[in-house]
C-alpha cells in the first residue's frame, strides 16, 4: 500500500469504524471516489477466521509446569543449573542458587494428538485435540512491561497500536452496535503497562480497546449519565438526539459532519445493545454451571468467558480476556512458590476455558473464530528462592484453536531443560499468522507514522503454515 493511498484511506476512514464502514457511508451519501477506494480493500485472501479471542495469562506462564514436559529435569533436580559453553544465564531478579527444579506436577499425554499436559490443567487437557501448540515461543525481553508490549503491539516500546487496534483499523466493523475491540481485564487489576497494552497508538482512537469493567454497574465507560444527575432522563436523551439531528440538518450534505450525527445514533444503539450482552440471566443454569460460574474460584473467569461468547455471537471482532493483574501476585508471575501459586491461578481459568472452547465448538462459532492462549514469557527451569521460578524469555508455550487452525498439532521445541527455544518463534510470527487467518497479509496492513510505514510485525514475521488447516 502506498503512502498516497494511505492518506486518502485515512481521510475516509476517520468518520467510521474502518474500511467497510467508510465505504458503506460513502456509498450511502453518493459521494465520489467510492470505486477507487473499494479497489484497495485490505483483505488479501479468503479469511478463515472472522473473530478473535485472545486469552492472555498475565505474568509469564511456566511452560515446564504446564504443557512442556521435560523428563530430563528429573535427573537434574537439585543440581546447579549450568547451561554449558560459558553461556550466561539472564535472570531478572537476583536469586542465588540456580538449582534445577523438576516440575512438581504430574504430566500425562492426552487426546489423539498425545499432547503432554500437567495436572494443573485437567479440563483444558480434555480439549487438546482442538488445539495447535507452539512449543517454542521466544521473547527478547524477560521483563513484564517490555515483553507484554511485544506480545500485544509487536514493539518493545510503548506507544504502538495493539493487535486488536490494527485488526479494527484494517478490517473495520463486523457488527453494527458494539465496539470492535473489547478488553476484559482481570477485576483484580489491569495488567503490566495498564492500558498501554490495548492502546490505539498512532491509529485513530476509536480503534483502541473498549475496556470492560465487568464488575461495574456500567461495564462500558460513559454508557449512561451518572445516576445522580436526575434531569437527564430517557426522554431528555432521545429528544436531545433529535435536537442534534435537526440542528445538524443545515450542512447535511457534508459527509464529515454527517458522520458525527450518525455517531450519536450509533451511541444510542450501543446503549441498548451493551446491557443485553452483559445480561447473563439469559443463559441457562446448565451453561453457567459448565463454565464454572457457580464455584467461587472459577466464577469470575467463567463469567467473562460467557460474556465473550455472547460478544462473539454478536460479531465483536477482537476480544481480549486477561487472567491476572499487574504486580507481584494475583497472576501467573510465580516467583516464590510454584507448588502453591501455579495451581491456584491455573484452577481459576482451566474449567472456564475448556467449557468456552467446547461451547464454541458445539455452537459452530469455533469454525470462524480464532482462540489464542498466550502469555508474555516463560519461566526458568531452576529455582528462585526455595521453590519459585524467575522470568525466562527463552521459551514458552502458546496455543491456538478454531478458524483455520490445524487441530491437534504442535510446532517447535525447547531444549531438554526448557531453557531456550530450539528454533524461536516470535510474537511477529504469531501476529502474522493471526492476520493471515483473518485474510490479511501482514506486510500490507500499514500506517504512516513519523516517516515510516508502520506494521504490526515491524520488519519481521513469518506465517506459521504448519499449524494451518
Amino acid at each position, binding site marked *: 500500500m502506498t503512502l498516497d493511498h494511505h492518506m486518502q484511506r485515512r481521510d475516509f476512514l476517520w468518520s467510521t469504524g474502518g474500511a467497510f464502514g467508510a465505504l458503506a457511508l460513502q456509498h450511502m451519501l453518493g459521494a465520489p471516489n467510492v470505486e477507487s477506494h473499494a479497489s484497495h480493500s485490505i483483505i488479501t485472501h479468503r479469511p478463515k477466521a472472522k473473530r478473535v479471542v485472545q486469552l492472555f495469562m498475565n505474568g509469564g506462564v511456566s511452560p515446564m509446569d504446564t504443557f512442556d514436559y521435560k523428563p530430563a529435569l528429573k535427573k537434574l533436580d537439585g543440581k546447579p543449573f549450568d547451561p554449558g559453553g560459558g553461556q550466561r544465564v539472564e535472570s531478572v531478579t537476583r536469586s542465588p542458587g540456580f538449582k534445577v527444579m523438576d516440575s512438581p506436577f504430574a504430566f500425562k499425554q492426552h487426546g489423539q494428538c498425545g499432547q503432554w499436559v500437567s495436572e494443573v490443567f485437567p479440563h483444558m487437557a480434555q480439549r487438546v485435540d482442538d488445539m495447535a501448540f507452539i512449543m517454542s515461543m521466544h521473547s527478547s525481553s524477560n521483563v513484564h512491561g517490555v515483553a507484554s508490549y511485544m506480545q500485544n503491539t509487536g514493539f518493545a516500546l510503548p*506507544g504502538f497500536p495493539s493487535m486488536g487496534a490494527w485488526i479494527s483499523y484494517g478490517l473495520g466493523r463486523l457488527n453494527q452496535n458494539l465496539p470492535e475491540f473489547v478488553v476484559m481485564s482481570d477485576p483484580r487489576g489491569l495488567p503490566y503497562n495498564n492500558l*498501554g497494552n490495548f492502546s490505539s497508538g498512532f491509529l485513530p482512537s476509536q480503534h483502541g480497546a473498549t475496556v470492560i469493567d465487568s464488575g461495574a454497574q456500567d461495564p462500558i465507560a*460513559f*454508557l449512561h449519565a451518572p445516576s445522580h*444527575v436526575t434531569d437527564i432522563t430517557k426522554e431528555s436523551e432521545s429528544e436531545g438526539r433529535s435536537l442534534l439531528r435537526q440542528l445538524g440538518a443545515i450542512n447535511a450534505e457534508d459527509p464529515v459532519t454527517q458522520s458525527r450525527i450518525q455517531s450519536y445514533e450509533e451511541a444510542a444503539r450501543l446503549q441498548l445493545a451493551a446491557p443485553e450482552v452483559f445480561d447473563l440471566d439469559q443463559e441457562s443454569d446448565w451453561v453457567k454451571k459448565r463454565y464454572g460460574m457457580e464455584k467461587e474460584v472459577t466464577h469470575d473467569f467463567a463469567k467473562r468467558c460467557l460474556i465473550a461468547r455472547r460478544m462473539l455471537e454478536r460479531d465483536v471482532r477482537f476480544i481480549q480476556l486477561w487472567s491476572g493483574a499487574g504486580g507481584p501476585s494475583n497472576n501467573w508471575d510465580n516467583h516464590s512458590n510454584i507448588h502453591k501459586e501455579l495451581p491456584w491461578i491455573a484452577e481459576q481459568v482451566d474449567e472456564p476455558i475448556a467449557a468456552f472452547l467446547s461451547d464454541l465448538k458445539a455452537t459452530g462459532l469455533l469454525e470462524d473464530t480464532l482462540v489464542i492462549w498466550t502469555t508474555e514469557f516463560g519461566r526458568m527451569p531452576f529455582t528462585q528462592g526455595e521453590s519459585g521460578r524467575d522470568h525466562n524469555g527463552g521459551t514458552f508455550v502458546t496455543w491456538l484453536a478454531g478458524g483455520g487452525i490445524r487441530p491437534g498439532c504442535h510446532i517447535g521445541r525447547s531444549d531438554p531443560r526448557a531453557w531456550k527455544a530450539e528454533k524461536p518463534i516470535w510474537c511477529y510470527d504469531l501476529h502474522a499468522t493471526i492476520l493471515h487467518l483473518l485474510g490479511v497479509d501482514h506486510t500490507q496492513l500499514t500506517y504512516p507514522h513519523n*516517516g515510516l510505514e508502520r506494521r504490526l510485525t515491524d520488519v519481521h514475521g513469518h506465517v506459521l503454515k504448519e499449524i494451518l488447516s
Partner: protein
Amino acid sequence: MLRVELNHPEEDSQWVGRCRIRWSNVHSDRIEPVLEADLQEAFACSEETRTMEQKLLLARHALGRHLDQSLEALPSPPQVYAATSYFSSEGNFKPSLGPRTIRQLRRGSIQQPGKEAQPAALSALSHIPWNPEGADLAEEDNRRLALGKWITHPSNGLFWRTMANRLWQHHFGSPLILTPNDLGNGGQAPTHPELLDWLACELRDSGGSLKHVHRLILNSRTYRQASTWREQAAAQDAENKYYWRVSPRRMEAESFRDSLLQLSGQLDARMGGPSVKQFLMEPGIHVTPIVDYKGFDPTHAAMHRRSIYRFLFRTLPDPFMKALDCPDASTWHPERNRSVGSLQALAMLHDPWVIAQSQAMADQLQKVSKHLEHQIELLYESSLCRMPNPTEKNLMIDYADRHGLANATRYLWNSNAFVFMP
C-alpha cells in the same frame, strides 16, 4: 571631516536609494522623528484650514504614536532559559553538572570505547555555520546555545519550512507537507511548494515572528473561505487538497475542554505551576499506583485548570480526553487524529465534568436573564459567536422548556456547530 563609504559585498550592480544623513548632539532617544512631508504640511495648517484627509492623516499618526508608546510601556516578555537539569541524586540517578565525556563506540559496542566525541554539526551541511562565535564548548550551556543557533540559522531551510508547515497545519487542520515530522526522503512532497517556501521566508525574515505568519495565514483569502460543501468542487477534489473550502475540523480534546471552562466561567487561566492531577491516586500493591478518574469530583478546582496543565499518566490516559483523540503520550504525534464514533459521542454526552460545566453555564445564563429566549440567544452568542436563526431558536426553546437549560446547553455543545471549526 566625515567620510561615508557605501559597501556592496554581494554584487556591484545594486541601486542606491535616496539616503539622508543627520547628525545631532542630542541623545538619540530624545530625537523627534522627522515627519513625512505631508504630515508636516498638515501640522503647519491651522485647524480651520485642514482638509479632511489631513485630519485623518494626523489622527492616524497620533494613534500610531499612542500605540507605540503603549507597547513600549508593556513589561518585557518573560525570558526562556535553556538550562541543564539539577536535582537531588537518587541512587545512580545523578544530575550531570557538566557535559559528560562521550566516546565513539567501535561497532557500537559499549565495551569498545574509542576516541572522545566533540560537539559539532554535520559536515555535510557546511552552508550552516557551526559555532561561528567560537564559544567555549566545554561549557554545557554554550553547547546547547550553539546547537540552538545552528538549528535556527537563517540558512537552515529545513527548520523554517518545518515550522511554517506546522503553522499552516495548525490553522487548516492538514499541513502542506502531509508528513510534518519528516520533510526528508521518507516524507511526502508538499502540495504547494512555493507557498511553503514563501511562508518559511516570511517567518525567517520577520525574525522568527510566529505572530507575523499567523497574521498572514488568518488574513488570507484561503483561510477566510466558508466551509460550505459544494458538490461540484467535491467531485473534483474530495479531499480538499487544493483548498476550495475550509475543511470543517472537530475541535481537539484540549480546545473542547478549555472552551467549556471558558464558557461556563470556570476557567482558571493562571499560567505555569506544577501540573494538576485530575484523578484520585493511591499506592498500588507494587510500583504502579491505583488511579481513579471516575471517583474524582468533577467540580474540583483542579478540573478548572487549562488542559495544558493536566498531569499525564502515560499508561492510564484520561478516558474523556482519549475519547477525543488526545494522543498516547508515549510517542510522537505530529498530527491529531480527528475520529468520530459512538464511544466519543457517549463521552461528550455523559462525562460528569461536561454535565457539571453545562449546569454551571445554565446557572450563569439564568443569573443574567430571566427569559428563556434571551438565555438561548446568550448561549448561542457566547458559544457560537452568532445569534440563533429562528428555527434554531425555536428548537432550543422548545427543548429547554421540556428538559431544562443545562440539558439544552449540553446538546448545543455536542452539536456540530459547536464542535466543528469553522
